[in-house]
């Protein structure tokens, strides 16, 4: 920096520091403790107070006889006043004597009290003790909304430092990964006013987060400038968002700050920042134009909006509810999926005034975290990822009322139904095991995949989710619960349900009810499970059939075969006949495999 520039820089810095010093002075004047004057009163004793001192404050102290007599007379007088009857008042000498006893007690006069073991006033009132209580500051401790003088001055010095390192050539080595990352961070923070804005230690946290993330993921800092722009866009967005949120919280509380709430905001901001850097790195690098884009009002960077949506989502959850929804890893999954979704379909942001994404994540958390049993950190983020992924692929179909009725996201409805059915407690069932998180995700993924690929079977004419999914799943789960035993694993059951979903998605007739009220697809599962898990089956049958690949294969083959013919109760009876014949053949020691079953079944159904 040349001398002229240095002088100008010094002038500007000095003016900034001076201005902050002035504001600190004004703040301290506003906050200054003032002594408040008490209203007028006579602090001297009188007979009534003197009597109460001995009657109420120190009732157990041993009294001189004269005092005792006076107190007894006082009580009589007070009773008479209360009753409205006549009484003999104290003489003026007696009144004075009573007050004298009081004053002697207060002044610890040994002449009267030396043998009486009276507990006198604990300490003298002093100037210091008077002021300690009556010199009152403006705000309660910890609630002053103004930056402390230290923050004002330190913040200004920090800003001056940022200006220097960001703009003075050679001040920071930008050839290293760390240097590039820090330069990006400093450039972005250049716009943030630390001295005035309630950001607490956010800048330091962002700085540390950048360094740690770059160290843990060195491959995301490449030679091109996109990742640096990512750091810049994200840190600016979060710093401004955090500052606005803290100001809003303070305003809502009539100017009173709450350090705990502010700390919560900043901790989540740091988390979102780390998550965006680590999860978004490769995504953004693959398509930087889309994600970092042009910074103007109409097409602002998607990364910025995803960051804001993530922070808005975590901070707007009801207290205590967030832990049920997403943890740190879950948030990372959601952020990455959000970026990909908006990348595929910018309409999620652009058509909803940039609010669509936050609404969707919030609705997902709200809908799914209210289920029975706790799936939280494992299931919810993955389901959210699936929903976001599919939404990106077909926004109009799957979320037709995005702006007006965000809760009516068709995949969300489908996922919610699926999880509710699978998580229901198996009361009075033969087969009781609970589906694991992995099982639930597998089924849900199949459901969402089928919905997205072939939505016609699941939506009614009005575009709402119809009952088909619920009917198919509920009845099939019921069949499994009714017929299965300990040899049926949840993984097998999951695969059976997936096969059911795919069959129903392909052909709606599987949902038609038989005379017994069961849908055909559930009746199929029921028949097969009844025969496979029959407790009267011979050991030979159990040996051949009670294997995962066999059970799953029997169901798949049955559904495929049924799919090729006209569905009716007659066909179910034929299936039953075929499986019974197969079991008999096994019992007789004949050879058996799935191909034979398929062949026999196809023949029987034709």
């Amino acid at each position: 920096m040349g001398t002229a520039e240095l002088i100008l820089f010094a002038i500007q810095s000095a003016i900034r520091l001076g201005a902050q010093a002035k504001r600190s002075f004004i703040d301290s004047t506003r906050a200054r403790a003032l002594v408040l004057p008490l209203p007028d009163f006579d602090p001297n004793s009188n007979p009534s107070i003197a009597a109460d001192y001995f009657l109420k404050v120190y009732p157990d102290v041993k009294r001189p006889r004269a005092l005792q007599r006076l107190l007894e007379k006082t009580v009589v007088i007070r009773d008479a006043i209360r009753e409205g009857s006549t009484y003999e008042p104290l003489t003026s000498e007696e009144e004075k004597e009573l007050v004298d006893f009081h004053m002697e007690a207060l002044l610890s006069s040994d002449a009267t009290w030396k043998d009486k073991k009276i507990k006198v006033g604990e300490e003298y009132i002093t100037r210091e003790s008077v002021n300690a209580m009556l010199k009152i500051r403006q705000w309660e401790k910890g609630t002053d909304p103004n930056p402390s003088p230290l923050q004002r001055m330190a913040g200004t010095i920090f800003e001056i430092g940022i200006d220097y390192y960001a703009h003075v050539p050679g001040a920071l080595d930008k050839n290293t990964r760390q240097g590039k990352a820090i330069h990006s961070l400093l450039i972005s923070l250049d716009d943030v006013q630390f001295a005035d804005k309630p950001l607490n230690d956010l800048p330091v946290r962002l700085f540390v987060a950048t360094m740690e993330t770059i160290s843990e993921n060195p491959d995301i800092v490449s030679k091109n400038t996109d990742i640096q722009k990512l750091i810049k866009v994200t840190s600016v967005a979060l710093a401004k968002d955090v500052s606005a949120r803290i100001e809003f919280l303070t305003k809502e509380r009539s100017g009173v700050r709450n350090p705990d709430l502010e700390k919560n905001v900043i901790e989540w901001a740091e988390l979102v920042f780390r998550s965006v850097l680590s999860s978004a790195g490769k995504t953004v690098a693959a398509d930087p134009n889309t994600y970092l884009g042009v910074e103007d009002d109409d097409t602002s960077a998607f990364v910025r909006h995803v960051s804001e949506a993530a922070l808005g989502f975590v901070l707007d959850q009801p207290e205590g509810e967030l832990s049920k929804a997403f943890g740190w890893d879950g948030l990372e999954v959601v952020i990455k999926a959000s970026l990909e979704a908006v990348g595929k379909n910018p309409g999620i942001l652009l058509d909803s005034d940039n609010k669509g994404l936050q609404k969707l994540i919030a609705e997902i958390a709200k809908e799914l975290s209210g289920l029975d049993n706790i799936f939280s950190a494992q299931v919810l983020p993955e389901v959210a990822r699936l929903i976001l992924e599919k939404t990106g692929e077909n926004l109009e179909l799957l979320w037709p009322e995005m702006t007006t009725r965000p809760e009516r996201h068709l995949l969300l409805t489908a996922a919610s139904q699926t999880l509710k059915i699978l998580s229901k407690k198996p009361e009075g069932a033969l087969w009781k095991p609970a589906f694991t998180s992995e099982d639930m995700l597998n089924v849900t993924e199949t459901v969402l995949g089928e919905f997205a690929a072939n939505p016609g079977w699941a939506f009614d004419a009005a575009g709402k989710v119809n009952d088909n999914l619920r009917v198919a799943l509920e009845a099939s789960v019921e069949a499994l619960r009714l017929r299965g035993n300990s040899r049926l694993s949840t993984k097998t059951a999951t695969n059976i349900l997936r096969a059911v979903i795919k069959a129903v998605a392909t052909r709606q007739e599987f949902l038609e009810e038989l005379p017994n009220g069961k849908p055909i697809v559930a009746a199929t599962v029921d028949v097969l499970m009844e025969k496979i898990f029959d407790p009267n089956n011979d050991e030979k049958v159990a040996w051949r059939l009670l294997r995962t690949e066999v059970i799953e294969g029997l169901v798949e083959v049955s559904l495929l075969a049924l799919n090729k013919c006209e569905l009716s109760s007659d066909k179910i009876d034929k299936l039953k006949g075929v499986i019974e014949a197969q079991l008999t053949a096994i019992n007789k020691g004949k050879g058996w495999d799935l191909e034979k079953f398929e062949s026999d079944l196809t023949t029987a159904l034709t």
Partner: protein
Amino acid sequence: MHKINLFTLNKGFRFRPQSIFLILFLVFFLSACGSISTVNYLRDAQEMFNQTAMSENQLKKSLDEPGLTTSKRENILSASGVHAGYASVIHSLNSFDTEQTNQLKQDKLWGNVLMLKSLAYYRLGEIDNLNTVVTEAKVLDATEIFPRDKAMISAIPGLVRINQAYRVIQLPTPSDNNEKNNRLVEVESLLHKGIEILDETRQKNATHPIRFFLIESQLAGYKNLVAAYVKFVNPVAVPQEQDTKNAECNLWRLTQGLIKDELKKAQANVSFWQNILGVKALGAKCSSQ
């Protein structure tokens, strides 16, 4: 032409660029700190107010600190000195011109100015001026007047009533029993309303340190109530049971509050009130707020 090198005055003395930087830095820093004279005037008024109020409180509590030397006693203003102190505060605060007033408003100090003025008028007994200032202060919003000052503006009507009751008690005692009864009724009405206003303000500021002042003010009101019964009924008469109960609760709240805020130095005030009121700090059936 011999060029003058700015960085060399003579051979043995050179200015380095860094030195110029530092000097300029200091010059402009100090100059930028200027233009705060209006705030300084306010601070002077605050200091005068503090000194005056401090002396007044100490006089009221009949300070009898062991080892208090004569010279230290002289530092406590007399009653006339207290009056002069508050008058001086009013004079200072009324002397701001339009530009200074606007500056104070811009710096969000006007609420503080109004609060100080209202307290000074109240102590001087200038009720009309007080009411004018309080009316102006009441329309300020949360960005113009801050918690302590706002609480004091709310509490002042209560403090005024306690003072008015004290004035009535100080009047010569009437000989006629009916007149005595009328005085008692008048004093009781003023004190009940005054204490009620102070208690409402206390509840709205239940965790702010100003609650200690508001509690002590209520206890001062109770002291006046006892004095009224002594004067107008009988020298050993007591106020109504509920009033005594309220005083016991307030003393209990004072004790609890001082413990909670760790104000050990202020504990002696509890003994003071206990001794001059003849009540104990009893918390049973008191609301904690």
